[in-house]
């Protein structure tokens, strides 16, 4: 008897809760209506504002009231049993029309897959941690302990310091102009224009160079909405090649303790491309090989070589 009674009460509470939810929804939509309509219908601006705010407050109050009501009712409804391993979604298995909506079996499948994925990801991360990527060859010799110590300090350099280093480099090379911008937070992006030869987009993280893209002087480096386009590559094969070499150079010039030196030496190396179309290969003496000029610049001597002519 008591059981039956409690079920009855429960059902009633459910019905009330549903209507409370409806009330809540309508009052919320009234809030949005009010916001959508904005201020109007009054002579003066002040009057409009007042009326709008009052109206808005009323609406919010009613939302609050409805929400409280709903919370009260939800306590009456009682909690659904939580002992099912899939919690509420386990109730899906109660759906009698399995054939039409095989949600439950799909859910189980997905759960299995996600478990497997997590397991494999764990394994992979373990393996990868053993083979951690080093940014350059001579980094190998440095003890593994020092690096983590060095990195945090170089990653939290103040933006002014970065600005300073960049502007000093900018002044160093007259034929190279560097434009610094920070479109997203503190990370700087550089647009380096080298003579009338090429443009380089450099993405920095603090004073570390993360990514570079080399494009032609006459190519567009901006996306349609006016931001620097750091993803699309050059239309010319020459500059695609130079982009590859520049990325190699990023990995080569690495000195975590003195990041400003790294940037400076990278820029010095980059500057040697001013004679991209004018310097013949130091090895074969020719300009062209497979239709490309000497795109490689030696890291130390800055001499020009074809990709295949370098040692």
């Amino acid at each position, binding site marked *: 008897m008591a059981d039956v009674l409690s079920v009855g009460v429960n059902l009633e509470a459910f019905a009330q809760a549903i209507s409370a939810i409806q009330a809540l929804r309508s009052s919320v939509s009234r809030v949005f209506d009010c916001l959508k309509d904005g201020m109007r219908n009054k002579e003066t601006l002040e009057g409009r504002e007042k009326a709008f705010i009052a109206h808005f407050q009323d609406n919010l109050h009613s939302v609050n009231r409805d929400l409280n009501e709903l919370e009260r009712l939800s306590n009456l409804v009682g909690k659904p049993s939580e002992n099912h391993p899939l919690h509420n979604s386990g109730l899906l298995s109660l759906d009698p029309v399995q054939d039409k909506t095989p949600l439950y079996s799909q859910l189980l499948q997905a759960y299995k897959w996600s478990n497997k994925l997590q397991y494999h990801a764990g394994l992979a991360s373990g393996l990868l941690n053993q083979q951690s990527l080093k940014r350059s060859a001579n980094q190998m010799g440095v003890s593994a302990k020092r690096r983590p110590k060095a990195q945090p300090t170089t990653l939290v350099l103040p933006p002014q310091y970065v600005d300073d280093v960049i502007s000093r480099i900018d002044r160093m090379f007259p034929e190279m102009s560097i434009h610094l911008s920070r479109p997203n937070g503190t990370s700087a992006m550089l647009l380096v224009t080298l003579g*009338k*030869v090429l443009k380089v987009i450099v993405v920095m993280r603090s004073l570390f160079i993360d990514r570079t893209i080399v494009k032609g002087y006459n190519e567009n480096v901006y996306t349609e909405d006016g931001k620097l386009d750091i993803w699309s590559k050059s239309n*010319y*094969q*020459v500059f695609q090649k130079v982009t590859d070499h520049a990325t190699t150079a990023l990995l080569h010039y690495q000195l975590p303790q003195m990041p400003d030196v790294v940037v400076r030496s990278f820029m010095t190396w980059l500057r040697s491309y001013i004679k991209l*179309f004018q310097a*013949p290969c130091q090895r074969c003496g020719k*300009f*062209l090989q497979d*239709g490309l000029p000497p795109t490689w610049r030696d890291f130390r001597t800055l001499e020009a070589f074809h990709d295949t002519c370098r040692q």
Partner: protein
Amino acid sequence: MEMFRSNTVWYIICQPPTACGYSTGQLRFRGVSQMPVAEGKSVQQTVELLTRKLEVLGAEKQGTFCVDCETYHTAASTLGSQGQAGKLMYVMHNSEYPLSCFALFENGPCLTADTNFDVLMVKLKGFFQSAKASKIETRGTRYQYCDFLVKVGTVTMGPSARGISVEVEYGPCVVASDCWSLLLEFLQSFLGSHTPGAPAVFGNRHDTVYGPADTMVQYMELFNKIRKQPQVPVAGIR
């Protein structure tokens, strides 16, 4: 054009400066007089020889091209009172810039305009008259090899083929004088030792950015040279 205010949408004039483009390092030379063609070889055969060499090099065919040029005289009526010499004005089109029209004077400025300029020339009939049968054009095939764009065309004036034009464009470089040696080497790779001297644009202006107008100036000079050359349908000048 619906709107004329400068604050409205225009027809594209040539390429926008930011688009990747064909703005660079073009040169052209007269193939006929310098190619070592055997006596009796026609222009057509020489063109075929050239294109075959390009294909062997690995260049890919990429459509066709056409450049034309119309000559205008200052009409007699305008002479005298202004005391101007009878200058020739050239109005040219290039299929590479299909919405544009180029107007040039010899050793003078080159105006880049949209194709409504042709309509204006009709209105100017009383002042500028097109010379009879002076229309000269070159048509041919475009080839691409790496970043090079090569256009080999047959120059015709009226019904007769008058010569061959070879245009080589190196897109990545925007300063003509920077890449002359590089272009020369490329030319040698398919023309052998019969390469031309550097066109004026490679020498006189250092550091200026090459534009479509520079190409048109070269075409005009080439056409003028061919026009003056006695009409020999077969390669004859050595």
